[in-house]
């Protein structure tokens, strides 16, 4: 008979760099071994418990929640304890203890002393893990102390791990327990689920200590006993009573994470109202605001339907919380907009959380809130990226730091980081590791490793490399540390730290809980995503600039809908700077799709995604739209779902609806399908749905072929499909930004420059584009520029000019720029010395301004400016008085090329000629054509072109193809580099700043590509010119 056993001391890999198994692996192994229970006791952390909880629920294993803590004392290390939660209150105490420990120390560490346990942590049991002090003096003192703090709740843990003499150790432990009058219990100090993780565990130790594994000596464990041992082995090692004691402890721990319930903040409901009545009131007010002439009937019905469901599920406080945050932003003039599935809610529209008019969209509220799913909704709201901090501070101020914190993001090992750390642990030298990691820098997964190793000059068959590859494979996917989610907030009614431990974040003044989004989802806890979106900043700025010029206040609502001029521009892919549709892939789709109304934009946003592309939806849709292929439906029910997209499923909701109408799924099942779709690429698990779907469709009389096709499309969607609601929210921003570009190009350009960094293009390209559209752009000038880029009237009725702002000047602080503007408002500057004195500029400021040629109005060309300011620098005292009278030497003006280099170095762009214009004669001699010439060439023509590399992309969908964008003085050339060429000419592909391409023109309507046959690196022609390429985003 095997003895029953519960493991009470077990670390997962959420004890970073100690635990060598995932929580799920530990649970599965404990279950397979027939353990009665398993405690996950990560060191001062509960970060891994939710994963363990889910896995344990799946297999039906009892899971105990606990933690291992080594107390620090004045003298150094205090006792090491394992604490286990008995009930909800005990769990709360444990979570608070961990929070205290974490917040007492720098990020990633903790500090707790014996005094922190003075209250005895009610609701928790404690195990003392005796140290290795042979005299046993301090162990005894610790045991007595523990007995005092945890009366009737303390044990001594006997961890027999095949040490030098386990029998003697056991006798000592018995003596210790007896002396302290505490019971003894068996435990395993588990670090891994199976013994074969020993190498990885040793490697983790080496990484933790920052030295190679061969130099770790006794810091390594002597053997692999710290795994979940067979019960037959335990029976050999431990007296039966010690094993039986584990069960008594497990029985006393009745707590399950399922008991956690989220308690919403309460203060948002005014006295005398219930959450439901208050939400209804706000929704009514909102409907009147949104529909001054009365809401359409179906919108009303929708709102009623939603309110009923929300009331049923008790989610009102959540809507109220988000409404409160959004109202704050509105009041501050911060542009914001909900994204994601919240746009399926008419209530969210009425509350001002989302902007998509329910009267114009088909809404699938179940995608957002579903009774069956019983899981709180997810409302993500985008705010202007440069003002999001105000919103975050508002949340902290309103709810207090003890009630609000950010959710965590678990940073896991990727191949690259795993190679780096394992390489160091195995003692490879830094150059070797750099070479390994840089050859893995992009586009490779685990499978490519042996090949890359060979390429980098390593023998994949050598012992060291074999070990490396094996360890890297296991380490990849291990959690490495917790980081903060970009904007996911958790807000609790009382102390959040009783729900989940809170840690310090890398950013001061931020705190992060130990659970990530998936953990929260799994436990049904809710969060609000406060996200940052650069385009919202740009739109708000552009509206402000345009409004000021027109003398009115412009808002998004003032942008006229369905303007044909906007669509005409979009159809020509004239969309640099426009939200979403400015990317290379989007731009090549626009002339084919030819969007002519808002819904077309929604489709455009959704269709140029890996999901629809891989699912093979794009071409059928384009052909049907062009009338080249008949539109047909296998049934009326399917027609109802797919009619708006010509029979081709493009949105996530459509796939779900198909499952409902064609295969008889319930909405809840369809939602599970959606989740499985999102995860199958990582985890698999779609097969049950495949059978269910195909059987369901067959039962309803659909053909096998149709069922197959739908299933393939679902696979293609994977995690990349957009829901319609999300596409619609984004399409709104597409339309508004396109309208601004079409009718207010100067304001739009200035706003984009002021909102950098954002979007797909660098300032140089944005300015080039604006100038191609006839916008005058004027240089940075201390006598005219503000901090931001501004509009200046041209003095005639043409469009205004953009004056570049001082923010473009590299290295000039905003405060200095503002002093310049203030001093200038008093009186114009008469010299550089006057400027320096009155604006209080230091040498760095002056040098930055001179480098940007912003002093030209006062000093003449750059070189004279530099000569002048170099003169003040060493004589600061004289600055305040009359400057020395010396005549400036006649410095030769810089050449056009030199100015260009200096412009790029300081501003990142030039208002002079394009660099390639200067090189054009030499390029002509090499028979290289311009972008304009390439655009005019017929299909199939052999051609050569050259340009500055402004982007390299390798879409996941394109099996190794790299898209390179080249820019010259006439525009862009879109280059396609097939995989084989890319591998052959890796150096030219990755290393060129100025690239020449010999290839063949491929033309489809307005879309022109140059398919490369050969790449030539011409970067030497650029000399010292700094260029920027946006690679592999």
């Amino acid at each position, binding site marked *: 008979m095997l003895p029953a056993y519960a493991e009470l001391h077990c670390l997962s890999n959420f004890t970073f760099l100690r635990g060598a198994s995932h929580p799920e692996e530990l649970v599965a192994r404990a279950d397979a071994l027939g353990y009665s229970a398993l405690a996950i006791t990560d060191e001062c952390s509960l970060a891994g418990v939710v994963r363990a909880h889910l896995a344990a629920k799946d297999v039906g294993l009892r899971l105990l929640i606990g933690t291992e803590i080594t107390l620090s004392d004045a003298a150094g290390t205090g006792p090491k304890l394992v604490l286990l939660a008995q009930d909800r209150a005990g769990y709360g105490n444990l979570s608070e203890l961990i929070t205290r420990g974490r917040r007492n120390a720098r990020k990633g560490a903790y500090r707790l002393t014996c005094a922190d346990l003075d209250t005895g942590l009610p609701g928790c049991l404690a195990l003392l893990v005796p140290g290795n002090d042979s005299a046993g003096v301090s162990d005894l003192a610790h045991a007595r102390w523990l007995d005092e703090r945890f009366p009737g709740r303390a044990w001594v843990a006997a961890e027999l791990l095949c*040490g*030098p003499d386990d029998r003697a150790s056991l006798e000592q432990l018995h003596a210790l327990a007896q002396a302290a009058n505490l019971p003894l219990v068996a435990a395993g100090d588990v670090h891994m689920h199976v013994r074969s993780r020993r190498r990885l565990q040793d490697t983790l130790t080496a990484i933790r200590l920052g030295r190679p594994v*061969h130099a770790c000596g006794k810091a390594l464990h002597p053997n692999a006993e710290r795994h979940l041992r067979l019960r037959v082995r335990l029976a050999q090692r431990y007296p039966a009573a010690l094993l039986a004691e584990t069960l008594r402890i497990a029985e006393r721990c009745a707590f399950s994470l399922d008991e956690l319930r989220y308690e919403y903040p309460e203060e948002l409901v005014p006295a005398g109202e219930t959450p439901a009545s208050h939400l209804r009131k706000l929704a009514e007010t909102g409907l009147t605001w949104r529909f001054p002439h009365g809401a359409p009937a179906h919108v009303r019905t929708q709102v009623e339907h939603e309110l009923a469901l929300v009331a049923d599920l008790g989610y009102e406080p959540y809507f109220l919380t988000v409404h409160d945050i959004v109202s704050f932003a509105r009041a501050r003039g911060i542009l914001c907009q909900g994204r994601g599935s919240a746009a399926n809610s008419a209530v969210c529209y009425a509350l001002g959380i989302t902007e998509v008019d329910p009267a114009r969209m088909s809404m699938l509220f179940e995608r957002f809130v579903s009774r069956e799913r019983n899981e709180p909704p997810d409302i993500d709201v985008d705010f202007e990226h440069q003002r999001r901090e105000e919103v975050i501070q508002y949340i902290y101020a309103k709810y207090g730091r003890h009630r609000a914190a950010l959710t965590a993001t678990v940073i896991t090992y990727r191949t690259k980081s795993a190679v780096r750390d394992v390489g160091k642990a195995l003692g490879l030298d830094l150059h070797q590791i750099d*070479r390994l990691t840089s050859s893995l820098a992009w586009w490779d997964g685990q499978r490519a490793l042996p090949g890359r190793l060979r390429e980098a000059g390593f023998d994949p068959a050598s012992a060291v490399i074999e070990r490396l590859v094996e360890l890297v494979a296991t380490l990849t996917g291990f959690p490495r540390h917790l980081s903060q989610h970009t904007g996911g907030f958790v807000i609790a009614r009382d102390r959040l730290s009783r729900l989940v431990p809170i840690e310090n974040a890398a950013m001061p003044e931020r705190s992060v809980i130990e659970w990530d989004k998936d953990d929260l989802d799994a436990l049904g806890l809710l969060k609000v995503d406060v996200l940052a979106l650069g385009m919202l900043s740009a739109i708000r700025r552009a509206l402000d600039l345009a409004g000021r010029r027109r003398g009115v206040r412009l808002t998004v609502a003032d942008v006229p809908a369905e303007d044909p001029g906007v669509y005409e521009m979009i159809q020509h892919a004239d969309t640099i700077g426009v939200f979403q549709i400015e990317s290379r892939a989007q731009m090549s789709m626009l002339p084919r799709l030819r969007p002519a109304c808002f819904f077309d934009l929604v489709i455009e946003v959704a269709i140029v995604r890996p999901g629809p592309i891989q699912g093979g939806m794009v071409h059928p849709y384009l052909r049907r739209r062009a009338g080249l292929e008949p539109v047909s439906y296998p049934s009326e029910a399917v027609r109802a779902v797919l009619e708006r997209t010509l029979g081709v499923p493009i949105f996530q909701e459509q796939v779900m609806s198909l499952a409902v109408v064609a295969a008889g799924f319930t909405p809840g099942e369809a939602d599970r399908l959606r989740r499985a779709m999102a995860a199958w690429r990582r985890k698999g698990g779609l097969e049950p749905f495949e059978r269910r779907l195909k059987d369901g469709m067959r039962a309803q009389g659909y053909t096998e072929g149709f069922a197959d096709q739908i299933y393939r499309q679902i696979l293609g969607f994977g995690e990349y499909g957009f829901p319609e609601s999300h596409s619609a929210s984004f399409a709104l921003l597409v339309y508004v930004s396109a309208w601004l570009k079409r009718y207010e190009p100067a304001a739009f350009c200035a706003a984009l420059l002021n909102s950098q960094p954002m979007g797909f293009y660098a300032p140089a390209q944005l300015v080039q584009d604006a100038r191609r559209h006839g916008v005058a752009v004027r240089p940075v000038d201390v006598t005219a520029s503000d901090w931001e880029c501004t509009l200046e009237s041209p003095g005639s009725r043409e469009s205004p000019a953009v004056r570049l702002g001082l923010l473009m000047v590299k290295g000039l602080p905003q405060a200095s720029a503002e002093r310049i503007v203030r001093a200038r408002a008093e009186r114009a500057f008469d010299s550089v010395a006057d400027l320096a004195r009155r604006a209080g500029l230091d040498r760095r400021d002056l040098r930055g301004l001179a480098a940007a040629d912003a002093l030209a109005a006062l000093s003449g060309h750059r*070189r004279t400016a530099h000569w002048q300011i*170099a003169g003040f620098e060493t004589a600061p005292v004289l600055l305040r008085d009359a400057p020395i009278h010396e005549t400036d030497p006649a410095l030769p003006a810089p050449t056009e090329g030199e100015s260009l280099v200096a412009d790029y170095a300081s501003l990142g762009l030039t208002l002079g000629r394009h660099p390639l214009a200067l090189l054009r004669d030499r390029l002509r001699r090499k028979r290289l054509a311009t972008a304009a010439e390439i655009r005019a060439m017929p299909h199939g023509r052999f051609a050569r072109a050259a340009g500055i590399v402004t982007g390299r992309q390798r879409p996941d969908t394109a099996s190794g193809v790299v898209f390179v964008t080249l820019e010259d003085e006439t525009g862009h050339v879109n280059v396609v580099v097939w995989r084989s060429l890319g591998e052959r000419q890796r150096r030219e592909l990755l290393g060129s700043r100025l690239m020449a391409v010999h290839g063949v023109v491929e033309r489809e309507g307005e879309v022109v590509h140059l398919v490369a046959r050969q790449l030539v690196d011409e970067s030497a022609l650029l000399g010292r010119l700094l260029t920027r390429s946006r690679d592999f985003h």
Partner: protein
Amino acid sequence: MQWIAIHLPQLPLEIFGLPTPEPCAIAHGGCVLACDARATARGVRPGLAVPAACALVPSLAVRERDPAGETEALIGLAGWAMQFTPSVALEFPAALVLEVEGSLALFGGIEPILVALRKGLVDMGFSASVAGGPTAKSAVWLARAGRETLLVPDMLRATVAELPVQMATDEIETLEALAAIGVTTIGDVLRLPREGVARRFDRRLLGEIDRALGRLPDPHTFFTPPPRFHARLELPAEVTQADMLLFAARRLLVQLAGFLAARASGVQRFVLRLFHRERRTTEIAISLVAASRDAEHFIRLLRERLGATTLSEPVRSIALAAEAIVPLAGEPLPLFDDPARGHGDWARLVERLRARLGTAAVHGMTISAEHRPERASRPLDPVLGKRRRSSAPSVAPAGSDGGAGPRPFWLLPNPQPLAERGAVPYHGGPLMLLAGPERIESGWWDGSEIARDYFIARTADQALVWVFRERPTPGPSAGGGWYLHGLFA
């Protein structure tokens, strides 16, 4: 005055005496500092980030810069160059300057000196740029700029003016400020108003230019050679062939010849030391019948000796020492202070034991932090070991694993297999297991992995022994057998 400057642009690379099998680059601060022709041909340039260089040439051998080695090489070259003039000065990081006015008569003009210098440098495997000028600075700048000319005084100003301004200062801030006003050559500086320049830029800039032009004195501290010759050469990769070693040693022998020529002396005995892994060395001593300073003769002798030597293990670096320099005949200077002094009888005892039993038979012991018993102690030199103790890595023990178990006084060098009858190990009778198992599973990282259960056992004659049973490992050895590993006192 007549000055000659020697600039060694590839010194960081060339201090390694042999070419590597792969293209090679020297790294400094994450960037390529120097690289060989094969790397250059494939696009590697000084200044390139190391990862970028490796991306260009995946097989690139990258070595970290060795500034001490560069200085050593420069000093070696200075000693060699003293055969042409006693006035040799080091111009760090990579140049020498020679004042040869007084040697012109002896060598028959400057041309023969230049020819001999160039030939010697080529012999030693250095790429060098050699230039002459009326001031030390002008000669150095020309050499650094790669303009191997002999500057006559009339051309001084015009030629110096053409040189890049980087020659006169290496201060980044000054260079940036100069670049900003469009100054690229020394001539550009000279064209600016002198007071304006003095006020704006680092004063040393004008000072350097003035010294180059002979407007300011430029005193030099000349190199004083050490009394004996010692030069070391790091090899870029481990060498196993004797002829490769000869190639590398050639440079040192040429240096030795120059060193001897400078002091009008010869040598009767020199020693080439070959350094292997883990501080093991091989010594090759060459004695000459009569004192000589003929490099070719040295090389011939060494070739013969190397031909007769089998290299027991690969060589990582070599060093050449010559102590018996002939005009100073008599007692050789001791290599170090007498190491035995202060160690008393202990050291003498070791010496005596070693004399009787052979050096390898007598060694000290030190413990090292290791779970594997074989490696938990290691031999060390009883004399040197005492001085080196502090350099042993100290590792904090892992929580509860700090205490080692009982270890036998005498550990067998190789575990001795034991017979087993009825699951009981035998060693002159059945062994009685007293304590254990102590399980040790460790050492996977260096290919000597062990997985054993150790027991303390009592033999039939009441002796205590340390035995283990091998645990099955995933590897080829099936395991399971019993072994005797140690005896308790």
